[in-house]
């Protein structure tokens, strides 16, 4: 299947939605592709009661003349020139042929994922990402009456705690690895964004009965004693408790779930595959959100972790700029410095304590796909060397999980991305791109929302 767009947006989170609306309102043929079944990205998706702002954006997105391809995943780039290119996408529904998405301009709004850090027991069932557990609960996982420990860093912890509490979970502890002093500048930055501050206050109010520890992290997740042979129903050891560490003291808390999130890692794989410049882990853009590659823009978390408002703003700038509304884009970009100050404060607040590097012992698994333990990684000279000689990051997730950990533990930066961006059917890589007149689409934008 072949689809032609003036502007193609990858990712339907806040950044992608804002970009698509801005571009479509200027009369261009816009397509949005996202691997989730519904738009909204990390924050708005599956929300039972999305905040008013989110509803407003969602409504505008629904109304916009945009071709939505939800449940499609971009797996490869077949061609890229200054005049445009072709991305190949695979449908999550089996049996559907892959699609070739032709574009003149491309906007990457691929968001971020949670960072995991290895500690003894982190691979036990029911130890999961904070955002991941949040999503599962919104998706129907029964959590009522379950005891949950939330650990990691950043504003996400409180948000998830509030959400789980609202669903009847008993959140027994929130453990923030940062110190209060480290977080203070963030509070100051928030003063300039009263909306966010209010939201934070609401979250804390919602979770006021839960102890909130700073400089605190999980030292180990503990399993029930192995049920032993004979109990076929439960061959896997289950999470029973977590040992927490704070300022030299350790204590153990019983729990059913341990939800961890050590801040976010930007999804830069597609940008890397296209060859766009990436610095310190983030996609480099100018004030108009143009990347180092002609025809490619980037907005939202891949350019810096700045929260939903920064993503929305960047999305609008990218959408306008890609649509040729340079003046409007420039006017909007004047508002970026404030957002970037918040992003910097957030980054400082979430900077990981170096002692977290000592959590994993020699036997702790770092790469879950390939069962690579910490001991095997010590002494390797870099990410590529570790991959080649230990298989770390070589499994189906291609380092999406362990790469963020290895970056923090050893200072290794991930290599260049290879296709497919996600595990894809071999058949999806078999067909050549359909070559048809791309030029025909450019001058007469025919709008055909799905």
């Amino acid at each position, binding site marked *: 299947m072949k689809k032609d767009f003036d502007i193609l947006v990858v990712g339907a989170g806040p950044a992608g939605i804002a970009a698509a609306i801005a571009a479509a309102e200027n009369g261009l043929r816009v397509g949005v592709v996202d691997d989730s079944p519904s738009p909204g990205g990390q924050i708005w998706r599956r929300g039972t009661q999305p905040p008013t702002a989110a509803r407003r954006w969602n409504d505008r997105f629904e109304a916009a003349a945009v071709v939505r391809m939800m449940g499609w995943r971009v797996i490869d780039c077949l*061609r890229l020139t200054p005049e445009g290119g072709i991305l190949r996408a695979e449908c999550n529904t089996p049996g559907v042929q892959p699609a070739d998405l032709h574009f003149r301009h491309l906007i990457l709004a691929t968001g971020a994922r949670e960072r995991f850090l290895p500690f003894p027991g982190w691979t036990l069932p029911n130890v999961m990402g904070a955002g991941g557990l949040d999503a599962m609960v919104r998706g129907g996982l029964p959590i009522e009456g379950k005891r949950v420990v939330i650990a990691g860093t950043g504003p996400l912890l409180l948000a998830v705690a509030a959400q789980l509490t609202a669903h009847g979970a008993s959140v027994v502890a929130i453990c923030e690895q940062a110190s209060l002093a480290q977080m203070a500048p963030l509070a100051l930055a928030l003063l300039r964004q009263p909306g966010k501050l209010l939201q934070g206050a609401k979250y804390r109010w919602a979770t006021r009965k839960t102890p909130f520890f700073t400089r605190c992290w999980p030292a180990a997740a503990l399993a029930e004693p192995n049920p032993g042979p004979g109990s076929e129903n439960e061959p896997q050891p289950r999470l029973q408790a977590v040992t927490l560490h704070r300022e030299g003291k350790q204590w153990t808390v019983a729990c059913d779930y341990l939800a961890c999130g050590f801040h976010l890692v930007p999804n830069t794989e597609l940008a890397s595959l296209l060859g766009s410049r990436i610095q310190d882990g983030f996609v480099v853009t100018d004030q108009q959100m143009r990347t180092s590659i002609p025809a490619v823009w980037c907005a939202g978390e891949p350019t810096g972790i700045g929260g939903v408002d920064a993503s929305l703003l960047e999305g609008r700038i990218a959408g306008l700029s890609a649509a040729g509304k340079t003046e409007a884009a420039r006017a909007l970009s004047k508002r970026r410095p404030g957002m970037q100050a918040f992003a910097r404060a957030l980054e400082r607040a979430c900077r990981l304590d170096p002692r977290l590097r000592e959590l994993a012992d020699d036997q702790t698994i770092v790469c879950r796909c390939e069962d690579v333990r910490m001991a095997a990684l010590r002494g390797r000279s870099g990410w590529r060397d570790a991959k080649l000689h230990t298989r770390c990051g*070589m499994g*189906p997730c291609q380092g999406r999980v362990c790469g963020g950990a290895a970056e923090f533990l050893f200072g290794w930066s991930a290599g260049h991305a290879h*296709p497919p961006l996600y595990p894809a059917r*071999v*058949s999806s890589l078999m067909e050549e*791109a359909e070559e048809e007149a791309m030029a025909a689409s450019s001058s007469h934008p025919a709008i055909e929302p799905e």
Partner: protein
Amino acid sequence: MTGNHDVIVIGAGIVGAACARACAARGLQTLVVDAAGVGGGATAAGMGHIVAMDDSPAQLALTRRSQQLWSAIAAELPTEVEFERRGTLWVAADEEEMQEVLRKQTVYAAAGLETEVLDARSLAEAEPNLRPGLAGALRVPSDAVLYPPAAASFLLRQAMDLDAKLLAPQRVVAAANGQVSLDDGSRLYARRIVNACGAEATRFLPELPIRKRRGHLLITDRYPGFVHHQLVELGYLKSAHSVAADSTAFNVQPRQTGQILIGSSREFDAEDSTINHALLGAMLRRAESYLPGIGRLRAIRVWTGFRAATPDKLPLIGPWPEDASLCLATGHEGLGITTSLATGELVAAEIAGVRPEIAAEPYLPARFGDGIRTDSESMLFGEAAYD
């Protein structure tokens, strides 16, 4: 490390590692220098099929000798080398290709290699996922599969146990007359210098008759039992590719992890590591024409690597006619994993001045004459070779 060495090996790919091991075993003071790490070049891109090949008698002699050397150390190889004697099935699509099976069997038998001819039915039993209607296959049970970077590491570790030293990462910018210049400005000296830089060997010896030949590979998620042998088509013989044309062949390998490695493609004059989607697609369709179920498997990664191709499909092993201190160990095209061990043996024998196990002449760089010319016009590269 900056003192005098008997031998400096440039390149810590599988060939350099094997050369260092063999030299160290002869008591030569050996230093290995690599611009990156161990086994990160073509060695990290190759399939790791240890295969006997009979494109020419010299190729058969070299691959056969190497296979014996791999067998001799098989028991010592650590688990991460993933050495498995899987055997190869040379798949014949029709009766014409069955004739080739019989010819191959005769040639292999003369070289002391035991093989088995499978008819259509036994082929289908051996590999149920192959398409029906194939004519048969030649089974070469002694062929094996391994994981090349770990094998290179192991060979180098053995060399270092024999007092060889490794200098990495350190790029060599020039090597001549017993002197090796590094890009940090320092110099190293040795009686003999071994150029084991694979497809990069021409960087400081531009006159070498070597061209880069890019190949694509795809690895899937784990599907244990999907195939049992390394499966290779005999068809490439019939379709006799022209010198310049890009080509693909059905070549599929089961990894010890249960993953399936799918190859292979060949193209000249591609200098970067980007994916050629047209060629990748052709390669996968070729694989699907033999294994109809392969399209349903999940691919997790596609990559490319560079073979060092010579005009006569034989490597360059031995002294460089224009500089007595230089010894070449490159040009292994699609067989360097296999032939690394025999290459090391030949290089060490040359440097130690003893008679090698197999005749060295067919691989001597001098076979191309003294003033080797490399403009592509004068280089008659043969048709697609094997991986």
